[in-house]
């Protein structure tokens, strides 16, 4: 078969969604985040589609905003923020952003970079931490969580989603971008991207940890989320730019909304499989 692939998976000893082997991979690149043409160039150009995706999804859910500062008043948690590539544009759009990343060097880079812009320095706070570590002090604190290019690196995805739910306000939004687990994503996302063209630093991704959208959707729905949007994404290495596409077979983005109050879900959803523990939705309840 095409996939003669042996992945050694380090099992984390603590109950954490952070994988220490993953951390080591990023350690060496901690200072290279902000080189727009360097190792992280594909992430820089991903902003061109993921920022509008987040922005427009949020604007579509409310009528109270100003086009000059569209995300003003929105509290966002950027999980796995790295050097702050996504936190900064969200901050520029007016949001109050908390960026967390388990790697201290990333946080240092991110803090350094935002420090030169007084507006951003105030709007964004970075913290070296895992998601679990902030849950206690941040229950239902955030309007939005973004976990972009993160879930393919976490050790325990279900726990990650549960923590997201805990720190998110009811009806808050969760945005995830990640990589599907298909033959195509192995070829394009690992072989071509890492080994052939080198647009992703080698060893960044392990195909075993890629997450198919069906599974992500199942995990989300069974943990109190309702999935609103799933979009496929495609990277063009020649132009260095991302675009949306129908198929989710390589990269994709997902927008899910946490249900309103305890045990209620939005009447506009179709819930494919609802786990038994969840109390059933009450018909006609406004969310």
């Amino acid at each position, binding site marked *: 078969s095409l996939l003669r692939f042996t992945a050694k998976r380090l099992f984390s000893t603590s109950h954490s969604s952070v994988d220490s082997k993953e951390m*080591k991979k990023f*350690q*060496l690149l*901690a*200072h290279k985040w*902000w*080189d*727009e*043409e*360097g190792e992280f160039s594909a992430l820089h*150009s991903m*902003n*061109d589609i993921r*920022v*509008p995706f987040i*922005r427009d999804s949020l604007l579509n859910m409310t009528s109270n905003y*100003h*086009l*000059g*500062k*569209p995300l003003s008043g929105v509290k966002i948690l950027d999980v796995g923020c790295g050097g702050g590539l996504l936190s*900064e*544009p*969200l*901050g*520029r*759009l*007016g949001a109050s952003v908390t960026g967390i990343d388990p790697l201290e*060097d990333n946080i240092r880079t991110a803090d*350094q*970079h935002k420090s*030169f*812009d*007084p507006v951003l320095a105030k709007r964004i706070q970075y913290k070296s931490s895992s998601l679990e570590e902030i849950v206690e002090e941040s229950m239902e604190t955030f309007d939005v969580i973004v976990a972009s290019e993160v879930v393919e690196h976490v050790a325990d995805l279900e726990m990650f989603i549960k923590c997201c739910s805990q720190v998110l306000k009811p009806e808050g939004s969760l945005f995830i971008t990640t990589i599907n687990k298909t033959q195509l994503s192995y070829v394009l996302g690992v072989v071509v991207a890492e080994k052939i063209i080198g647009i992703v630093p080698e060893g960044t991704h392990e195909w075993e940890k890629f997450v198919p959208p069906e599974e992500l959707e199942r995990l989300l729905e069974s943990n109190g989320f309702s999935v609103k949007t799933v979009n496929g994404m495609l990277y063009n290495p020649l132009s260095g730019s991302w675009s949306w596409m129908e198929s989710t077979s390589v990269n994709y983005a997902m927008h899910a909304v946490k249900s309103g109050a305890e045990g209620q879900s939005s009447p506009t959803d179709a819930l494919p499989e609802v786990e038994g523990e969840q109390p059933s939705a009450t018909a006609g309840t406004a969310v």
Partner: protein
Amino acid sequence: TSAVMAVVCGRGLLAPLRGRLRAPLRSVTAAPAAPLYDVVVSGGGMVGSAMAAVLGHDIHFHDKKIALLEAGPRKEYDRVPDSYSNRVSSISPGSATLLSSFGAWDHVCSLRLKPFRRMQVWDACSEAMIVFEKDDLDDMGYIVENDVIMAALTKQLDAVADRVEVFYGSRAVGYTWPLPSHSCDTSPWVQIELADGRRLQTKLLIGADGHNSVVRKEAAIKNIEHRYDQSAVVATLHLSEATDNNVAWQRFLPTGPIALLPLSDTASSLVWSTSHEHASELLAMDEESFVDRINSAFWSNVNHSDFIDTAGAMFRSAISLLKPSGTAVRQLPPSVAKVDPESRAMFPLGMGHATEYVQHRVALIGDAAHRVHPLAGQGVNLGFGDIACLAHHLSAAAFNGSDLGSLKHLLKFETERQRHNVSLIAAIDVLKRLYSTRLAPLVLLRTWGLQATNALPPVKVRI
């Protein structure tokens, strides 16, 4: 591990060693930070002021801080002075649309402007001519005094004073550029030093400081430039008798084109491009002789030769066989009676084109990016076109939360504008050279070319 830490701490060594083309960076450490702007426009002429005003009125820039640096004093008036200014521009409908998008065109209309419906361009060495006219009764363009445009722009800048800070009497004397992917302890912004010692920082510097652009020079952007052996003589003229005066006239003399641009029913503006010596002569002579020269330039046929006239006539009859309406009657421009005293002036002409319009955190617009001969009346319109394009990209970038100085969207602006500008600039330069000769073959070429162009609607519409 310590090895890993050593690698990470040694990031100074690991930082990409790119060839630095710019002046050495003065390390900006923890001195009291100079005020930081999102955009600084250097140069408060028509193009610079319009750029600042467009951004100031853009909804996505509502939250941003913009500064406009102008070396000269503030210019404004509520009422137009009785006499006309001798510096006028031909404003295309596209430019008028841009100006109305942020409310400046209304002010222009309430001050003073002259729409024109028709343009006649003809050769001194032959009968060939071309007439531009819109089929619908729309205006082809507008002749507006530069002072009027400036007054309108100043008013619209005042309207957004909470977002746009204008620094009058402020000349920028030095620029310090950041490295593209900045290493940790140096400021990522462009540092600007003013003549009075004040300093500013900006995320994006827009150079609108004219054809001798300091921004362009300091950014070490190569400029292809050429000084024409010509100066333009400008003056405000009064016509012998009142007329509708809604035609712009331009005649190509061997020494250079002479143009009469309508200001009112009784006044027109002169733009006469000619050799430096002739220009000085024209300025020195008494007013009556000056007026005589102008009339003679438009009316006299002394440069015709029989050969050319015959060849031209033959071509014209050939065209009329194919396309009966393809030749129009040549009208004669109004005759000039006198010139406004003190309104005569001259300035040297040249062409220029910057090889790059953008760099990291820098963009050039207007004459700083491209300079053309006035014969096509395009100069300021190209600048306004730059503004429309750059503002469009910056607005989208702002709405995406992007770093405004990022080359990604700046390059899109450069590509779009260079694609549009280069062919036009080259064409204007070719026209200038083509019409600077009496040599029969070239005259014949341009005669036939002009006649053919006149007869072909699709070509004319594109122009």
